[in-house]
């Protein structure tokens, strides 16, 4: 029995697939260097606004705490709000340093796909696996002082009940954030392991 391939569209082999792929119609988009230069500027602005959106929730929360700080007269509450603002500032700084959308590295062409993809995955894994230290822990001092302030400043048992309720909600949220990021880190690690396997196989 011979493998007789008919030259119709139902029976294309890999060479025909190459032909099919290369002969597909394209728009023929042309961009002059000047347009590219403008587009590069636009790209940087898009990255800037994308990062601003990432920071927006922290900035809104910081403004809210600043308002609470200005309007309360109880020292312990003021300390708590100040700690929250400092914590959120630290979170935004870390987001900017390691987690935010980055501009395109100029050395992209010098890296093989394996090197580039691995570096990207490892960077993202570091961000999500260390979420406790840079995202959750900086907010803990604020919550500790806020709990103490609630217990001391408000009459028993209302202050205690409010503090316990607040801490329970915060603990659940922290746990969920931590678990989600752990899952994301495991997923990224699997992808890195696959790349390592591909890199090491001959």
């Amino acid at each position: 029995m011979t493998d007789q391939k008919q030259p119709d569209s139902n029976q294309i082999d890999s060479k025909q697939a190459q032909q099919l792929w290369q002969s597909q119609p394209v728009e023929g988009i042309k961009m002059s260097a000047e347009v590219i230069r403008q587009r590069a500027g636009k790209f940087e602005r898009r990255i800037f606004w994308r990062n601003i959106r990432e920071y927006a929730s922290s900035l809104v929360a910081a403004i809210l705490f600043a308002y609470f700080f200005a309007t309360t007269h109880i020292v312990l509450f003021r300390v708590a709000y100040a700690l929250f603002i400092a914590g959120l500032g630290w979170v935004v700084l870390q987001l900017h340093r390691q987690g935010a959308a980055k501009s395109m590295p100029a050395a992209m062409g010098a890296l093989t796909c394996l090197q580039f993809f691995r570096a990207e995955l490892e960077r993202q894994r570091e961000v999500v696996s260390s979420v406790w230290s840079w995202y959750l822990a900086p907010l803990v001092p604020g919550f500790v002082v806020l709990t103490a302030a609630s217990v001391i400043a408000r009459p028993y048992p209302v202050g205690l009940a409010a503090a316990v309720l607040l801490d329970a909600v915060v603990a659940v949220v922290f746990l969920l954030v931590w678990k989600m990021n752990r899952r994301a880190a495991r997923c990224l690690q699997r992808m890195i392991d696959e790349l390592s396997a591909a890199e090491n196989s001959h």
Partner: protein
Amino acid sequence: MSTIQTIPAAGSTQDELYQDAARTYGAALERLARAYEADLEIRRDLLQDIHVALWRSFAGFDGRCSTRTWVYRVAHNVGASHVLLQRRTRSQALVGLEELENLPDAASGQPAADRSHALDRLLDLIQHLKPLDRHVILSYLEGLDAAEIGEITGLSPGNVATKIHRIKAVLARQFQQGGHNHD
């Protein structure tokens, strides 16, 4: 990391290198963008991002690899970044060539009615692949040889050969009418 302040002046060699590359590989870059993004509007943005990355990259082009290898590396790396970014918003599971080879295929045995359908099917197949396998199949479809694919992807020659073997098997299964090609 380059910023808007580091954009070089017009008329530099960087511009000439970019213009040459865009002229020579413009169509290939469009096809590549199509393989990384199905949505037309997002794809246009992606293609422009590839061009920007390419233009910017030529500031550091040292000639240690061919222009072709450089262009495909940049394009694939932008494409891979795009896939990673889209992972956050799209739940589509990506598969490797090995899994694709072993998966029962809904389209297998069904004739591709015309070139357009065949191309759609091919695109659908590529868009479901994991980035590294997508780099290999796209480079193969663009007619690059195993050595060049290895240089672009960083995979060993043996690994590229294995992947090309799998690609051929998958393409044959996808595009040949079940059983009719064997007499």
